[in-house]
Structures are given as C-alpha cells and as structure tokens.
C-alpha cells in the first residue's frame, strides 16, 4: 500500500509518502492507524489523536471503519482549510 501525508501530519511523520506492506491482521483504517502507532512514537505523534486527523482511501474521504487493501493509496491529513 501507498501511504501519503499532508500538512502537519507530513511534518510529524517526516516524509510525504512511503510504500509499506499491509500487515495481515489489518482490515480497516482504524486497524492501520493502530498498527502504525505501535511501530514508534513518530507515527504516534502524527496519527495517535484520531480526532484531529482525516483519512482518504484512493482519493476519497472515508471514516476509520473503511476497509483497506494492499493496493490502496491511503492518505492522512488534518481537517482541510482551503477556500
């Protein structure tokens, strides 16, 4: 799967994108966040407070119960502030 990050999520993760193998026990966005946060405190600081982040899977807004597959592009970012 392709992970992409924007704004302060990108700054905290320290990269704008990365490719990662989907772990076998990860079925939803919530599972994926829990997995990433368990890896180290960098992901914890970026993604740990799920109220403050928003998620898109394959460039569509989704909630944390959305399923994920290894073919997906999964984006994490703060609430949008354009316009």
């Amino acid at each position: 799967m392709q992970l992409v990050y924007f704004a302060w999520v990108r700054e905290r993760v320290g990269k704008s994108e990365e490719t990662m193998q989907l772990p076998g026990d990860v079925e939803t966005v919530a599972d994926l966040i829990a997995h990433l946060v368990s890896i180290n405190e960098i992901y914890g600081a970026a993604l740990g407070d799920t109220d403050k982040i928003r998620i898109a899977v394959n460039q569509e807004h989704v909630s944390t119960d959305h399923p994920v597959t290894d073919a997906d592009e999964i984006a994490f970012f703060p609430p949008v502030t354009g316009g």
Partner: protein
Amino acid sequence: MAQISVQAGDFNISDEIDALKGGRTDMGAIVTFTGTVRDVTGELNAMTLEHYPGMTEAELARVAEEAEARWPLVGCRVIHRYGRLEPGDNIVLVITMSAHRHAAFDAANFLMDFLKSRAPFWKNEETGAGSGWVDARESDHAALKRWD
C-alpha cells in the same frame, strides 16, 4: 459539466465569466465567489497552500457535480490556487450561471461550503513570528448542515 482547475497562477474573473458564457444568452444570473488571502492584523507576510494532487481535482468535481444535480445551472466553474500567496491575492473562484438568480446564489454558496470542508487544501501562514498551520473552523463544518 463543471470546469475545474487547480493551478498555481492567478485568474481574471471577467475573462473566466466570458469563457464560461461562451456567447450563450440563456442565463440571466451569474454569481461569483472569490476568496482572497485575508490579513486582519497586518502581521501576515504570506500563506502557502499545500494540496493533494489528483484528489483535489476529483473532490472539486464531485462537489460541482452535486451542485449541478441540485440546481438548474447552465455553467459552473471552480478554480483553486495552490502555492505561496500574499495578502489580498486570490485563492479560489467559483462561478455559477443559471436562468434563476436564487439558483445561482444557492449553488455558489453550497459549492463554497462543501469546498471549505472537503477539498484537500491546507493553509500555512507566515508571520514575523514564524510559520504555522491554520486550524479548521467548526463554523465551516456546521455550515454543511444547512444543505441536508
């Protein structure tokens, strides 16, 4: 079918209206909304808009499609800039054209409400004290409920 652009460069509102009209005379009402970089305190040096290439265009097209399904529009145009912008610079332009003025007003209002909470853009402000990400406003999220 709405025309969507995500671009670094500026836009000219009159030129965009003329292009969207394209010589047609069956609309009576043209509404534009222009969002500009606002500097209330005089402390803002610039603002940088980050976006999500690909998703931005797709999301703006989805929002515009929804507006076109709800109101009888004969023209719909959305332009959103990204990159570094200075106080007073244009950020976003929405144009709606209809035979009916309330349809044009409502559609433009709707487009801005949804764009504000859906289009993947993030503002980073530079002041003399440093730079920081602009927080989303609860009022922008609340504005969506008007359209349920």
